[in-house]
């Protein structure tokens, strides 16, 4: 670092900026979890506007500069479009629970598996490598279109992109760690097939991505013990489930906020859910659904090989039941449970069919 040169004469200073600031005398105090985002939501700094007119990317609560360039043509600038009440909590939790696929997975516990099981595992890994970063690419696009006035929600989405990146990488690692390799991709996330990409509204995207898509995957990860053959795979499913749970919680809490604050959008949200439910088992994005590549792979893993396919199939059906039950609970929690009581949703019927 260079040494400063001592000047003989003093510089003229303007200093007019010193009196242009946001709310002053702010002294945020730490809580038992450290100095969290919730702890700095004080005074004017805690007020996320219902409608954001911030088009300069100004940090919320900072003083406006009249000559500042309008740089943010933000598509998401209405609070109800993206907000959730527990974003600060989810963000801080995400930071605390980051993990490393390189060093936190006990890779040495992986032993050679029978070829049919390894192929099934590698097929699932290929599928998960393919789908996990949909959940990275799509939120990233929305992050760049969201006003920083809603930075708490935006920061949770940044964590999600990070999490999905790690998921993409951990499943690739598993596929290449045990004498196998990547298999044939499903293509289920391509273009219009992957309808998550089509969303023109954040809540529409969130309903497909967080509630139905990631909700279904979360159930599978939570039941990962049933198809894990070593401690490494158990750790992968457990840690991924922990991350997915936050992403699903984001979707549920956002939809709840939407239900409470934008009743005029209820019917529209129901339409998104109608669409999501049509593909909940029929599409190729739910690996426990009816797409043969992934459902057969899962049945082999759950049963313990091709020879025990029927046993695996029964477990797969149990997973589907649980996926649907959990989906119903989430949608009810989000404030849209009436669809299950008034006959609009076919999910209770599908669930009854499976149970029979």
């Amino acid at each position, binding site marked *: 670092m260079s040494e400063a040169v001592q000047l003989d004469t003093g510089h003229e200073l303007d200093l007019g900026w010193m009196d242009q600031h946001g709310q002053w005398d702010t002294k945020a105090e730490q809580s038992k979890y450290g100095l969290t985002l919730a702890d700095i939501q004080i005074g004017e700094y805690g007020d996320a506007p219902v409608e954001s007119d911030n088009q300069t990317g100004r940090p919320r609560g900072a003083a406006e500069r009249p000559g500042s360039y309008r740089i943010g043509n933000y598509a998401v600038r209405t609070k109800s479009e993206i907000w959730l009440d527990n974003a600060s909590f989810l963000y801080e939790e995400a930071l605390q629970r980051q993990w490393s696929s390189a060093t936190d997975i006990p890779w040495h516990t992986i032993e050679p598996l029978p070829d049919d099981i390894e192929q099934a595992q590698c097929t699932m890994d290929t599928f998960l490598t393919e789908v996990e970063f949909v959940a990275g690419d799509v939120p990233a696009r929305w992050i760049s279109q969201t006003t920083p006035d809603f930075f708490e929600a935006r920061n949770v989405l940044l964590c999600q992109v990070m999490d999905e990146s790690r998921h993409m990488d951990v499943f690739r690692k598993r596929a*290449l760690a045990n004498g196998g390799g990547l298999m044939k991709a499903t293509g289920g996330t391509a273009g219009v097939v992957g309808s998550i990409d089509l969303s023109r509204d954040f809540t529409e995207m969130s309903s497909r991505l967080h509630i139905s898509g990631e909700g279904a995957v979360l159930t599978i990860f939570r039941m990962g013990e049933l198809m894990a053959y070593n401690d490494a795979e158990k750790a992968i499913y457990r840690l991924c489930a922990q991350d997915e749970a936050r992403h699903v919680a984001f979707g549920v809490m956002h939809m709840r906020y939407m239900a409470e604050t934008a009743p005029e959008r209820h019917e529209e949200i129901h339409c998104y859910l109608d669409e999501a439910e049509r593909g909940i088992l029929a599409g190729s994005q739910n690996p426990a659904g009816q797409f043969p590549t992934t459902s057969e792979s899962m049945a082999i893993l759950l049963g313990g090989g091709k020879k025990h396919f029927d046993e695996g199939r029964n477990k797969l059906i149990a997973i589907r039941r649980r996926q649907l039950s959990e989906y119903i609970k989430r949608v009810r929690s989000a404030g849209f449970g009436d669809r299950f009581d008034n006959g609009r949703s076919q999910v209770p019927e599908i669930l009854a069919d499976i149970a029979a």
Partner: protein
Amino acid sequence: MTPVPNPKFEWMNQSRQWGVRVKPGKKGLTLGSLNVGIYGEVPTEWNDQTRNPRGAIARRGMPPVGYAIREKAGIWADCAADLYEEAIQRRWAPATDVPWDTIEPLPDDVERAVCQVCTELSQYANVDIETISSWQHQMAYGYHEVKQFLATATFDAGRHYEVFRKRALRNGGGLGLESPGEVNRMILESRGGWTEAVTYLFLLRGTYAMTMLRYLERFAHNDAERFIYGHVIQDRARHMAYALDHLKYSVAHVEDQTTVLATLLFIGDRLFARELRDPVLREALAIIFGGGVEGARTHGMATWEAMMREFMARYEGTCEWLRVRRAPDRIPEEMRRFLPEAD
């Protein structure tokens, strides 16, 4: 509904390369170590527009996702996989890792200056977030190492946005005045390709921010500030490593790229120079370096000038390393006066 039809197992035995067994090394099972056999073949062009993982068999007939960045020269850096793992290992949490208790009340002028600098740095992080995340989904899957590294970069930027806000609201102050925004706009509007965005976001703004952060670390008032600046420097150093490696790769593989970069910087320098005329950040830094308003008029401003000389030396040194030739008389006076030869 037939719950699960009778299996056909048509998906079995379909792999381009089987029998791969990558073992963890001393740094664990890293992303870079997976690049064996066909899985390590990174093509110069990636025409598959689906999310087909590199090395998997593509399913035919799938509609395109529509990736804009499909050429290796427009995105690649050899170090991306290693930087990705390093970013994960060096994670930190502002809430619990920063020793917030070490912050003591500061003289009012100094607190105002720190808060102003934190406001600007928070806004820099906002530009990092918005710029990178607007490009991520446009990058083809064949170059997943870069996509994954950039996920760590936006994650870092989210943390920077947060930590500078926390510092501003911690010690009896508040947020200051927003930045002029002209350079921010230039970075966000770099639509000519990811390489252009990298040039403005990292080579120009990044070099400046890194120099500023080094000085701020030197003049930190307490362990909390020292920790913050030190860790943001560590994060930003990874971003710079990717950026410079990518620019070097781009220069080596794209015809006339050095001239294009020179033109971009010719334009960028002018906007950057215009922002240098704005007194706000300069005076806030001088107050911090000088220990108050009085000190700012003398040794504070002298230190700011030393900082600018250091910035220009690094900036020009990097351009030279990239073989981007820049005639001094084409550099705006506001910057040229800090060139080493100008002493």
